[in-house]
């Protein structure tokens, strides 16, 4: 099992490959923790997993050019869209799985940055439904 340094991750939003304008990607999944502790001799809490809650955090490099970042995301605000994330932009396999899901474009930053800095847009979008992992 090889460690991986992210250099060529692929992020596709609404079928558009925006990878070269994304500097950071975090795909998170967690589950509610449901307490099932009953009286017992163990004197310890028992728990089971509840609903899962998934989200996607991206840092875009803003670009207002035709059919680029702003033009792609702005029409999607307030809607759900299909997103595909792959660690390395090459053939999907057991060692390079793809993750497909439906994200709610719940926030967007058309303009964000300080003087002398790169204009970016940092967003966290909740995921609606499950994340599908594919290995082929």
């Amino acid at each position, binding site marked *: 099992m090889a460690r991986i340094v992210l250099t060529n991750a692929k992020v596709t939003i*609404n079928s558009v490959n925006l990878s070269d304008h994304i500097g950071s990607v975090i795909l998170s999944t967690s589950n509610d923790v449901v307490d099932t502790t009953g009286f017992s001799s163990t004197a310890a809490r028992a728990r089971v997993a509840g609903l899962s809650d998934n989200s996607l955090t991206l840092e875009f490099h803003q670009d207002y050019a035709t*059919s680029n970042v702003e033009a792609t995301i702005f029409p999607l605000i307030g809607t759900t869209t299909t997103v595909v994330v792959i660690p390395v932009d090459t053939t999907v396999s057991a060692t390079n799985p793809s993750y497909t899901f*439906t994200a709610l474009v719940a926030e967007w930053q058309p303009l964000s940055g300080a003087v002398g800095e790169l204009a970016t847009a940092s967003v966290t979008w909740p995921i609606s439904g499950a994340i599908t992992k594919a290995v082929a």
Partner: protein
Amino acid sequence: MTYTIISELNVCNKIKGDTITEKELLNAGANIEALIAGNHIKASGGTTKPAIQEGAYK
């Protein structure tokens, strides 16, 4: 219905000038209206408005 890729970016793994069907886009889960609004694709073959026969009432 088919569309032509006009984006500089890859859309459904296709590049500028390629054609793509509505079915391919929908199978990929794409929001076609948003892709058109973002100048990623345009309908191929021009208008789909039916031609009006000469002499017919408009």
